[in-house]
């Protein structure tokens, strides 16, 4: 049984035709299911948990990358596979997973190519893409049995998924149970002189003399140092398209 989780913005009139097209397509492909509209007062995790008891096996998120991350975070520990129907063509995650936007994405859901990817915890919060921050004075990244002391002003990008295919530094594999840590001096990325660093690890902690470095993760959530990053015991089962980039 399929569940369709709609972003709250889909109540707007401008999405009516798109939703009609999606619902018609799911009927044609025989993957129709119960619809749930996200809102601030209800917990989507509880809804999915109850529906699994009734036989639900797939939760399809209809919305944008932010909607997808929100639903995954609330239901990752549930035994369910996630599908994704992006409502606009700018979705970076959809592009990475090989999912076209709009009702055509229903074909991908129906195709059921399921990939299992790593999910990471940062101080018990979940992220699947990456985290970014700029180092302050005496920022230290502890990795395994060593620590890396970073100069003030360096850009740090810790990736599970490499959405920028043009960046030769980070060849991230979302299934290798490792994060890629890219440290670069601003403006020196492709400099001949090696001003960048690249390390890989499974367990990372970040501290700073100034304990309030804001770290942005999955592009829209923020957490302050000190932080500890670990591989989550839960993996993300997601339906992907043939054109996926991993």
């Amino acid at each position, binding site marked *: 049984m399929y569940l369709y989780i709609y972003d709250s913005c889909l109540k707007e009139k401008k999405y009516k035709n798109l939703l009609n097209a999606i619902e018609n397509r799911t009927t044609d492909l025989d993957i129709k299911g119960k619809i749930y509209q996200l809102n601030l007062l209800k917990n989507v995790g509880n809804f999915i948990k109850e529906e699994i008891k009734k036989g639900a096996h797939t939760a399809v998120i209809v919305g944008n990358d932010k909607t997808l991350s929100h639903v995954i975070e609330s239901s990752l520990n549930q035994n369910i596979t996630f599908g994704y129907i992006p409502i606009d063509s700018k979705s970076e995650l959809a592009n990475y997973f090989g999912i076209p936007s709009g009702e055509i994405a229903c074909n991908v859901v129906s195709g059921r190519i399921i990939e299992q990817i790593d999910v990471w915890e940062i101080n018990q919060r979940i992220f699947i893409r990456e985290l970014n921050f700029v180092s302050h004075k005496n920022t230290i990244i502890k990795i*395994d*049995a*060593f*620590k*890396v*002391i*970073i*100069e003030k002003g*360096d850009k740090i990008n810790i990736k599970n998924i490499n959405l920028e295919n043009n960046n*030769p*530094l980070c*060849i991230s594999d979302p299934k290798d149970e490792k994060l890629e840590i890219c*440290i*670069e*001096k601003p403006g020196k990325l492709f400099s*001949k*002189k*090696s*001003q*960048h*660093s*690249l*390390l*890989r690890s499974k367990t990372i902690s970040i501290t700073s003399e100034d304990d309030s470095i804001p770290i942005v993760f999955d592009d829209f959530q923020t957490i302050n140092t000190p932080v500890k990053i670990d591989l989550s015991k839960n993996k993300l089962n997601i339906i992907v398209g043939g054109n996926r980039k991993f």
Partner: protein
Amino acid sequence: MFKKEDMHNIKDTETIIGESVILEGDFNGHGNVVVEGKLNGSFSTDGHVLVGENAEINANITAKSAFISGKISGNINVEESLDIARTAFIKGDIKAQSIAVESGCEINGNVKIGGLGDKQMQINTKARNEKKEELE
């Protein structure tokens, strides 16, 4: 062999320790590693290590093969070939299956070439001075 011209071939490099960072502790890596920054502690990898001109390492180094053009205080133990560039400054003992030393580098320590120990020699002088003497 992991030559200097390969140092920016990022695709083949598992780890890069850039100029802007200092690494402290025990580094046990896999694959090819480029060191351009500072490293204090110990270092080992099952691949190649390239130590850049500006690198400063205070650690014993163990690797499959190595190209050194920076400053190292510590022993170097290389399973296969070791290339030492003219800009290298090494204070410590060296052990490798084969060694290529460029004129101008500085080595202070014992050098052991091959596995049997029959080619051991003591180098406590600048390679460039040795070359000058040879010419005279």
